[in-house]
């Protein structure tokens, strides 16, 4: 929260005009008062209002420059009559006033055209651009009139002033990869799948993957929720990728690969973070060598996520798209500390993207890895996926066996559903909390599909002890818990119910509680800083570790998290690294700085009232294979939208683009 001279942001009204600076009130919002380490912001103007941090701001020029940005940011506009001409008229009229040639009638025209844009524009950008401009005209009318009456230019009209603008939207703000979601949905709506796919690939090379297995945090920030239900954002991403694959096109890259800049980067790990780093660095003309320990590419999405959720043929297309950018892959190559020391010499920078591939323990009595039947989730999924997808190793056959998985997240869901497909006799999932929480941690679909397939969920339970006979697992002692509300209104607590413990006979216990990072590849003498949960520490903005030139992204940096999170980190890191290898400096672009500011401010406002859209148009749901059709095979469960479903879903998107601009 920062002190402001004037603010109309999101309905607040703070007016410190004629008030001494030390008595200025604070805004209730996380406005970007400090632009970056060496620049203060003087003003912030956006879809929801305007905030001035400095008395000296030229409000007429600010309004004019904001209108100019609307002209500038053509990627999002020029698609409707009110926006196309209205935006230009706004700019021309404001410029006329600012250069000292305006008339009072121009103010009326501005108001009239502004109102038309607010009512009839195609997307939110056209509807919201007039908002702060009209705010300024209303609250600084005297300033406008002075210029008009005296026919003089506005106070800084002829000076060089720095304005930095960015287009955003609630969904892309919430997406860790900041995918231009309205653009790829527009591609689907316009039946221009190439445009849709290229919009996705601007910041997300794994379109097949994130069109299928993303937990879609964007949908929690979808403004359509304020009206009825969120857009099925994730499922619409798949359309472009499937179209490219179905039609056998060459890869549609959103950018031209730049000429070789003579620099090279080593990337450790060919999972989502590694692939993403490689793709965007290669596009910048940096030579990229990706080292992968496993015989196959793709990381956990390849060997962790099962075939029925993420068909490898489709993932391989994403990987081939990355390769097509000119990336060099080296498989079966585990990188150790000696390699790292050498890489530091041989390469201009190194990206560590090794994920978290050690399954954490359940922490029960007699938990020993040498008991036969104790099988970590990572190892189990490795074996299943390597066989199912690549024919490597041997088939997992659980016929006649009982399997108990301890977990509650996506990995544990994969474990139990794979166990069903491996023909297990009985599959249990043990989870400390309740059904609601497991759905929150995964998805509604994932949980219900597992239940349909016959997985038995034991809630409010935890394994207390492994019982073995001669090192062969026989049974588990399971404790029951209950949720006891805190009488003081605090968080409810799980309390063990004495005497309710019971025993389950089982052949396997598969811990899928969480995973940790294996960081033995980092030379000890580098003393790379770690987080308190034993992952690599960075500042979360440029992703450089405490050692210069060594970067980290994905799960080994963040801890076990989503694919889209890894991609988002790696995309940013690739941008930073592309500059770093050339200049030796670690910098962010203005666009990235603004991205972080807006993320802090939060673009999505769940209380906002949506107007101009008919509520009650239902969200489309794609067809899912029936339980009998899917239970004992690896067919993709979710069939994706039909074209008709996709188009009607895309029509629901409200194109909530916004422009934010800082004067710094």
């Amino acid at each position, binding site marked *: 929260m920062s002190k402001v001279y004037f603010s109309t942001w999101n309905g607040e009204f703070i007016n410190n005009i004629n008030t001494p600076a030390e008595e200025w009130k604070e805004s209730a919002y996380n406005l970007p008062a400090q632009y970056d380490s060496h620049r203060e912001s003087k003003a912030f103007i956006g879809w929801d209002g305007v905030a001035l941090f400095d008395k000296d701001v030229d409000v007429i020029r600010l309004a004019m420059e904001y209108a100019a940005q609307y002209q500038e940011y053509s990627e999002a506009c020029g698609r409707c009559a009110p926006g*196309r001409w209205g935006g230009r008229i706004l700019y021309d009229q404001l410029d006329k006033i600012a250069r000292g040639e305006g008339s009072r009638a121009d103010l009326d025209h501005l108001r009239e055209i502004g109102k038309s844009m607010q009512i009839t524009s195609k997307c939110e950008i056209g509807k919201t651009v007039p908002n702060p401009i009209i705010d300024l005209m209303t609250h600084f009318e005297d300033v406008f009139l002075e210029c008009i009456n005296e026919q003089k230019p506005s106070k800084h009209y002829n000076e060089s002033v720095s304005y930095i603008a960015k287009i955003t939207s609630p969904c892309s703000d919430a997406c860790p990869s900041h995918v231009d979601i309205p653009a790829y949905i527009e591609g689907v709506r316009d039946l221009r799948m190439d445009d849709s796919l290229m919009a996705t690939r601007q910041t997300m090379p794994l379109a097949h993957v994130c069109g299928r297995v993303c937990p879609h945090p964007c949908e929690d920030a979808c403004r359509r929720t304020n009206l009825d239900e969120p857009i099925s954002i994730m499922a619409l991403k798949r359309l472009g990728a499937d179209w490219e694959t179905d039609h*056998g096109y060459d890869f549609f890259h959103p950018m031209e690969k730049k000429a070789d800049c003579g620099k090279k980067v080593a990337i450790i790990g060919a999972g989502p973070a590694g692939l993403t780093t490689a793709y965007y660095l290669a596009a910048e003309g940096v030579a990229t060598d990706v080292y992968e320990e496993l015989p196959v590419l793709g990381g956990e999405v390849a060997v962790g996520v099962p075939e029925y959720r993420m068909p490898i043929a489709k993932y391989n297309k994403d990987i081939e798209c990355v390769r097509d950018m000119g990336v060099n892959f080296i498989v079966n190559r585990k990188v150790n500390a000696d390699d790292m020391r050498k890489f530091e010499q041989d390469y201009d920078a190194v990206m560590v993207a090794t994920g978290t591939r050690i399954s954490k323990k359940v922490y029960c009595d007699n938990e020993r890895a040498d008991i036969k039947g104790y099988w970590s989730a990572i190892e189990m999924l490795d074996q299943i996926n390597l066989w199912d997808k690549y024919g490597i190793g041997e088939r997992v056959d659980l016929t006649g066996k009982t399997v108990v998985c301890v977990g509650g997240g996506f990995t544990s869901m994969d474990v139990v559903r794979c166990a069903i497909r491996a023909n297990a006799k009985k599959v249990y999932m043990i989870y400390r909390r309740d059904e609601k929480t497991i759905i929150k941690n995964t998805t509604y679909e994932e949980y219900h599909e597992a239940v349909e397939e016959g997985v038995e969920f034991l809630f409010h339970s935890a394994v207390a002890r492994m019982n073995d006979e001669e090192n062969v697992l026989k049974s588990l002692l399971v404790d029951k818990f209950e949720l006891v509300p805190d009488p003081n209104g605090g968080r409810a607590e799980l309390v063990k119910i004495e005497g309710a413990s019971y025993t389950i006979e089982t052949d396997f216990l598969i811990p899928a509680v969480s995973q940790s990072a294996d960081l033995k590849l980092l030379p000890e003498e580098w003393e790379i800083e770690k987080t308190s949960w034993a992952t690599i520490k960075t500042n979360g903005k440029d992703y450089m570790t405490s050692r210069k030139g060594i970067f980290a992204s994905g799960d080994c940096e963040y801890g076990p998290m989503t694919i889209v999170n890894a991609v988002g980190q790696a995309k940013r890191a690739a941008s930073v690294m592309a500059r770093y290898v050339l200049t030796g400096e670690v910098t962010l672009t203005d666009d990235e700085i603004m991205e972080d500011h807006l993320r802090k401010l939060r673009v999505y406002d769940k209380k906002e009232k949506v107007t101009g859209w008919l509520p009650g148009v239902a969200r489309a749901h794609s067809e899912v294979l029936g339980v009998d059709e899917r239970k004992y095979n690896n067919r993709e469960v979710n069939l994706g939208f039909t074209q008709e479903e996709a188009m009607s879903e895309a029509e629901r998107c409200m194109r909530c683009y916004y422009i934010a601009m800082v004067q710094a």
Partner: protein
Amino acid sequence: MNKLINFKIDGISVEAQKGETILSVARKAGIYIPTMCYISKTSPCASCRMCVVEAEGVEGFVLSCNTPPTEGIEISTNTPALQNERTNIMKLYDVNHPLECGVCDKSGECDLQNKTLEFNVERQSFSARDQLRPTQNWGLINYEPSLCIMCEKCVHVCNEVIGDDAIEVKFGGYSSTIIPKNSETLDCTFCGECIAVCPVGALISSGFKYRANAWELSRVPSTCAHCSAGCPLEYETRHSSINGENEIYRVKNNFEFASLCGAGRFGFDFDNKAQGNESAFNRAIEAIKGAKAIRFSSMITNEEAHILQLLKEKLGIKLFNEDARVFGEFMKSYSSVSGKVHHSGSLDAIKQSDAVIIIGGRIATDNPGVRYALTTASKHNGAKIVYAHPMEDTLMQSVTTQMMKYEVGTEEGVLALLAHVILSEADLSDSERAFFDELDFGYLYAETNIGEEELSHMMNSFSRAKKRTLIIGNDLIAHERASNIAKLAALIEKYSDFSLVVVPREVNTLGVSLINTLEHDENIPDVVGYNAKGDFVISSLEGADLAVAALNQQEGTFVSIDNRVLPTNVALSFHGYTLNDIAKAFGIDKKNTIDYTQELNKKAGFKTVAFDDLENFLSPFGDDNRGYLLDEVACKADGELEELEDMPEFNGTIVYHCDPVLQFNNYTFKAEQLPRENFLLGSAQFGVAARISDGDNVEISFGATKIQRTFKLDSELKGTIALNPTFDISVDASRYRFEKSKIVRVV
């Protein structure tokens, strides 16, 4: 499941089906909502914002073109507030729109003009700085950006209906413009649909530019005479000078629902300017008296075909038309299994399909109507489309989801394999089942080059499909094994949910095949040619012994690929004699050619409808009210599948008869605006095999034919098959389209 949604528009109770929008329901109910960018055959452009409406209890205005109604909602389409905003939008559209209506091609039929008047925009309250926007000359099409209102109709049509995807919006707010996609200049099939849909004078025909005003032209509704798609069009005519003859100035089409290719749109001037004189007429009568046969083309009306049939019967002469004969025989074999005369499918069925197999034709150029239907199916239904052919076609890539590349000449085997997988669970008769059981799959996979995996991939990709269509292209009609191929196609249609479309080669191949009793063309002496070669030639083409009217100079009907009998009309008059005049000389006595329309062969499904009772329009909702559909006719189904023959081998240099885009026949060849590129097109590999290089003059020999062409390398082609155009020559339509050929360089 398909529940109707009940709601109200302006107090009137209406109902919507799933997928309908407020605007489409309003239009059906006859309620007017103004639009500038809406076009029925594409997804909504949603750029003009004119179609906003108010919904009871909803704050703000709702866009009606892309919003489906919800149960019980009450919509108002015409409040003062809405009118005010719509007027403001019109004011914006008029900002800096050049006042050149006096010379603009669109003037008089311009949506911007019309709506400016409708909303009474008399003065400009808004202004913006004007910008320099030079005219773009793209060949047959010109683009005037300063007139463009950025409605995006052209872009949508080009991508979603035509499939060229050749233009796109260059985003840029006020300076947004339409540009060629991935190219400096427009690189497309020049269908001109973008011109048709342009609501203003931004996209125009360069050939028509500044030549006439809309209000001076007379419209003659007709049917395109270039291929069997039977596209509706209007010839627009006017006198060409003071006291001058009428001339066709341009062709327009009902772009709201129908589409037209460039040959239809720009290739309209194929009228016969020669005149028939009495002495030539008398010689023609003598020639027919002494003739043993009349040879004719399928570029004639049903009525002409009927007269020829009457002449045959009266004079006891033979009729030769190899194109219609092989087609008729194909359909006869088809009928022997299906038990009915007509194929079940249509262009509409293709449009609605979500799974299509197209085999044996270079369909994008053979029949653009089929291509556009495939594009619609692909874009709007996400159809899985299997394109089975020995050669790739770049025009098909955007719709094809699976290229099934088979060896030349092995079509019978490919059909057998397709029928086998499609009918694997069908309730076949014992003998039909035995046919499949006896197939030697190893041999078929090896010879056709179609693998089991490809077939199962196809079946997988079709697994969610609800409407399927099999399209039989022209390669299969004049095939050595056509008869068995037709039976296999019939079997698929009979025992599966596939509908079937057999593509006729010429505009009226289908009609002729239903009307005439044709005999094998034996190349005997004393043959009179009717629009075809002969010892005495009666023709609407140049060099005839007796000139007759071309298809845009006469009344009559065609039968299209849809089995629809479509009327064609007189756009330009012809001075001379008609076939009917000749018939009269032989005592076949009806006053006018069109008096025969109601007498066409009933056994083939023609109805007793007089020509003047035939309608020729699309309803405001796109229903086809042109002519009539042939009645379905049942027949005996006593055909048996034959055992497969050994597959032939085609080695060496092969030519494939195939016309370039915008060319179909000797009539399009005449058209002034259409390019006449008659190169032999081949890949570098073909050049090596034939020992010729780009630009060489070559002599191509196949069968008994020798022709000379210039060889041109085409980087989009692969393999050792070259494309040989036929629009400037005539080829024997009874021969398979792939020919083993000898090619020598001519110095």
